[in-house]
């Protein structure tokens, strides 16, 4: 028996990360509708402006003890979840991390390239490269490819001689130094939780919990984010992975199901 799955197909394709494959999953059968005024138009415009150009949630912040980096692990192609186990926190070297948002291949390749350049710097100058220097190297490379379609929204977090450092670098050529950033389609949601709970003098456990919570709340509301919330800590001795929790399980941990009072119980109708 052939099942009727027309109800499961979306009428309008939702676009995810531009550089990932989309063809084949977005074509949907449609039929002609009578001409009417486009009353959805104004809403669509607003959504398009904020549309998930980089379907992910990543965040990083600096606090008293060092830097905290966290990300989800979902890869989406339009409305299809292609993977729930993508490593979005890239280990550039033992004391520097990069986050991935945008095109997976672009981020992985250019972070690895950055790792190579950092190692060459170490060999040539007999000292580790600073986070400032590493982020500038990456920003200059991305700037030279500006307009050619790279999609990279990354944060470089590390520990160098001046202490913890955090830079946001993107494929438009922007580079910002800051204390906390979040990148991706889920970033507005993460910012809300992060900004509210942030204090400079947190302990490592408190900071890890804040990062985990912010990722969880973003994955709850953003369809393009999900999977596993990974949390890394960058301290004076380099980075260390703190946790990787499935966000579905986190949901029930934060909001456990409580037995609710029964209002009306359905019973079998008495046999007539």
């Amino acid at each position, binding site marked *: 028996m052939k099942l009727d799955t027309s109800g499961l197909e979306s009428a309008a394709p939702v676009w995810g990360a531009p550089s990932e494959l989309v063809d084949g999953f977005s074509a949907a059968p449609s039929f002609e509708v009578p001409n009417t005024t486009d009353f959805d138009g104004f809403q669509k415009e607003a959504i398009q*402006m*904020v549309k998930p150009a980089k379907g992910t949630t990543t965040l990083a912040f*600096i*606090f008293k003890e060092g830097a905290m980096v966290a990300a989800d692990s979902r890869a989406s192609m339009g409305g299809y979840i292609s993977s729930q186990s993508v490593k979005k926190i890239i280990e550039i070297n033992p004391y520097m991390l990069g986050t991935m948002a945008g095109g997976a291949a672009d981020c992985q390749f250019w972070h690895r390239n950055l790792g190579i350049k950092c190692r060459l710097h170490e060999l040539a100058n007999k000292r580790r490269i600073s986070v400032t220097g590493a982020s500038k190297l990456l*920003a*200059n490379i*991305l*700037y030279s490819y*500006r307009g050619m379609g790279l999609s990279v929204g990354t944060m470089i977090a590390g520990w160098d001689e001046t202490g913890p450092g955090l830079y*946001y670098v*993107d494929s*438009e*050529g*922007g*580079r*910002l*130094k*800051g*204390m*906390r*950033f979040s990148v991706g389609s889920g*970033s*507005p949601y993460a*910012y809300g939780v992060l*900004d509210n709970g*942030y*204090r*400079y003098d947190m302990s490592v456990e408190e900071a890890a919990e804040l990062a985990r919570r912010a990722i969880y709340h973003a994955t709850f509301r953003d369809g393009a984010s999900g999977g596993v919330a990974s949390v890394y800590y960058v301290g004076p001795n380099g980075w260390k992975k703190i946790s990787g929790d499935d966000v579905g399980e986190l949901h029930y941990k934060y909001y456990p199901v409580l037995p609710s009072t029964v209002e009306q119980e359905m019973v079998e109708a008495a046999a007539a």
Partner: protein
Amino acid sequence: MECVFGLVGNDFAVVVADTSAVHSILVHKSNEDKIMILDSHKLIAASGEPGDRVQFTEYIQKNVALYQFRNGIPLTTAAAANFTRGELATALRKNPYSVNILLAGYDKETGPSLYYIDYIATLHKVDKGAFGYGSYFSLSMMDRHYHSGMTVEEAIDLVDKCIMEIRSRLVVAPPNFVIKIVDKDGAREYAWRESVKDAAVASA
């Protein structure tokens, strides 16, 4: 939404820029310094696309420094402005930079000056200028209250009036501004006008 404006006073020039780094609806940072100190007596306030803004102004800064190393004397403000315009013009038909610049400087012989350089390599020497949505409010304010030979107090008062106007009338007004001044003693930061402080310690 970026606001940059400036004016020339008695023996100084002052430039003001907003300090928001914005990406679509997100404010990534609200203490980003967009006024670069070009050399000891020159300031460059830039607004435009994030990559271009930093890369182009740093390129100009390094070339101005190179001239000084090679020739032993610094460039005049007019020369630096013309060099900047030339670079924008050369790139214009190939790979244009999307940056608008107000270049303020002080020369011993000619005093303070302000140059308006826009993204299509227009160059004007002006007494007051502005870029961005904020210009709609600050230009008329400056036209009304400006007179040549203003003191620092009068100029900062006018700057504050413009900032107030931008804050109250521009729909997505940037909350924080930085004011920098250049006079015979050099180019330096004058003040910040912050109405939203970052929760953490403000980083440089």
